[in-house]
């Protein structure tokens, strides 16, 4: 009972903490902009700098670090285990959070074992090359709307290039270099197998990753993520916000699956594949290994952020949005928006972990088959269908109708299993509740 109450309190307090964090981010960005203006510099640079610190180094880094514990603690909850709880600073395991410090201490103090036949420069560079693009990806993600703070227009977005999504694709492709280079520079057969697997997998999924977003680009008529976020607040027929997953349900599923493959995590964790080849980082000790692992978690957060920005309404809180907008000051509303974005991102990161523990690892031919024979045709069909519908009806209402039909079909297909009288499958009567892919906790 105490736990139940505590968890409900946590679920209420946690979004409020995120909103508070959003408020702080706006305040700091506004201060930085004013300061830069008073020093005779571009205020936009000040905002960007503050955002780099607050969004990338604090939000993304903290979430990714938290995910290293979430990976263990959440998976324990999913598997009816308890999870890490042996470190008890105040006689309380504190949900396993002290393990972050212990992990840091351990990885930093490990002996630095290096293969003597390594390629010295590339070997040292690979973890950095893995980590940096993952961070850089977050630069174009709009966490909060544009709002006036202390006389300056401030947005919680590091940069807003016209290329937008293209920048995203370009940087996302760079991440594979770290993996491949790590595999090659280690001069280890298993490591290079991991690197080769990573590159072939990434090249495959890059295609469907790009194509799955083309539909959204056409529907919103822009490449810039912040414009997409704004567009998702518009209402269809005056009631339904034109959210990405309503207009592009197929795009969401394909993008989410491709993003999963990009993060190199189960069920697409062939480059790691710890049961067959140890992975591309087999020769990396201590903190270098931790950087590679952290890069994976950062990619999880960043790709969850992209999914939110494009498909799940960006920073729109969606529920009570009109009421919030009418009753709160613009800055407070913007903070609520930023909190909503971060909450959605964390929820999607959670969903990725659930999927990670649901599906076993694919075989390599299955992975390629899934990509080239299933996802790519679907993505292409989606592009053509979306193009035709957008051309026929620029108000996007037809697109929304088709999208809703697709969602209903998916729900029906998922719910169909519960009606089949198969005693082998337990857990009846549940599929429907989780059918909509956008349903975030």
């Amino acid at each position, binding site marked *: 009972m105490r736990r139940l109450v505590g*968890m409900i309190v946590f679920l209420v307090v946690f979004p409020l903490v995120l909103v508070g964090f959003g408020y702080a981010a706006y305040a700091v960005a506004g201060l930085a902009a004013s300061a830069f203006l008073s020093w005779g510099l571009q205020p936009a640079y000040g905002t960007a700098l503050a955002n780099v610190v607050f969004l990338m180094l604090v939000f993304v880094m903290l979430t990714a670090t938290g995910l290293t514990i979430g990976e263990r603690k959440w998976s324990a*909850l*999913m598997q009816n*285990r*308890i999870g890490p709880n042996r470190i008890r600073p105040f006689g309380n395991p504190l949900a396993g959070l002290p393990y972050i410090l212990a992990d840091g201490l351990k990885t930093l103090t490990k002996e630095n074992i290096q293969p003597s036949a390594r390629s010295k420069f590339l070997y040292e560079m690979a973890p950095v090359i893995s980590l940096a693009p993952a961070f850089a990806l977050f630069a174009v993600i709009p966490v909060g709307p544009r709002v006036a703070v202390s006389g300056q227009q401030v947005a919680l977005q590091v940069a807003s290039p016209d290329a937008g999504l293209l920048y995203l694709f370009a940087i996302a492709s760079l991440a594979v270099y770290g993996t491949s280079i790590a595999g090659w520079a280690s001069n280890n057969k298993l490591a290079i197998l991991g690197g080769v697997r990573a590159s072939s997998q990434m090249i495959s999924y890059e295609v469907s990753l790009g194509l799955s977003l083309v539909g959204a680009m056409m529907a919103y008529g822009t490449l810039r993520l912040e414009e997409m976020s704004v567009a998702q607040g518009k209402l269809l027929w005056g009631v339904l916000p034109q959210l990405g997953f309503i207009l592009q349900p197929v795009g969401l599923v394909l993008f989410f699956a491709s993003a999963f493959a990009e993060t190199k995590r189960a069920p697409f964790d062939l480059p790691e594949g710890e049961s067959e080849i140890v992975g591309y980082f087999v020769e990396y000790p201590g903190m270098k290994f931790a950087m590679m692992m952290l890069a994976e978690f950062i990619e999880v957060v960043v790709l969850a952020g992209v999914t939110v920005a494009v498909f799940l309404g960006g920073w729109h809180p969606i529920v009570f949005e009109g009421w919030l907008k009418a009753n709160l000051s613009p800055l407070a509303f913007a903070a609520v928006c930023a909190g909503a974005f971060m909450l959605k991102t964390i929820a999607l990161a959670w969903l990725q972990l659930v999927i990670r523990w649901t599906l076993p690892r694919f075989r390599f031919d299955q992975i390629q088959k899934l990509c080239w024979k299933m996802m790519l045709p679907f993505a292409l069909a989606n592009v053509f269908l979306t193009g035709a519908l957008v051309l026929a009806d620029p108000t996007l209402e037809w697109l929304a109708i088709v999208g809703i039909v697709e969602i209903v079909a998916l729900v029906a297909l998922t719910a169909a299993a519960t009606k089949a009288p198969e005693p082998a499958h337990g857990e009846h009567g549940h*599929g429907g509740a989780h059918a909509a892919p956008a349903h975030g906790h």
Partner: protein
Amino acid sequence: MPYKVIEDSPADFRERLFLPEVIRGVGIIAKQFWRNFFLQRDPNPDILLRKTPTVTIQYPEEKQPYPPGYRGLHRLVPREDGKPRCVACYMCATVCPAQCIYIEADEVEGDPIEKYPKRFVIDELRCVVCGFCVEACPKDAIRMDTGEHAPPTYTREGQLLDEKALLRGAPVSYQYDPWLRRGATAVDPKKLEEMRQRAKPFPAGATDELSQTPGFSVRQLAAEAKGRGA
């Protein structure tokens, strides 16, 4: 082909679509997650009776109880006055197959016949936990009912348990105890009278009471054998 491709695609069209089944699986795992997220873990040591699905036993804090009849660490059963019931008869040391019991007998001062163990040492490292010593003891002076195993120590010497370490647990007195029937000069007469008052009657199924197996009764079996007419 370097590997054999197994064609195991399901016949059902819906399952071949893959996505609905994935969503269903995610639903199952998510349900599991939220149930464990909200519910307090039931720490019942009997995991079959737990109300939550977690089966882990947090060992040093939570211990699974041993079944009745489990032969645990030895103890020397004390009398009411705190002295061991042991009369240093060497029965346990004699029957011990591992020869892990060492006894040095001494005479009780001021008593013409009674003995007591001046030293009573059990080497828990040599003990094979057979329980013969318990069976052999005529005075119910050594038992293995502590429900513990030998505690870990850093040295081998730590596993040598002497009479001070072994003498613990609830005291026991029987009316047939010789020191109560005959009177013991070493014990304060008032205390002796108190012990007599509190002593349990001579156990009708003495063997049965000390039996390690619940439901096992030598006397009953003997009575049945007699009834059968051998």
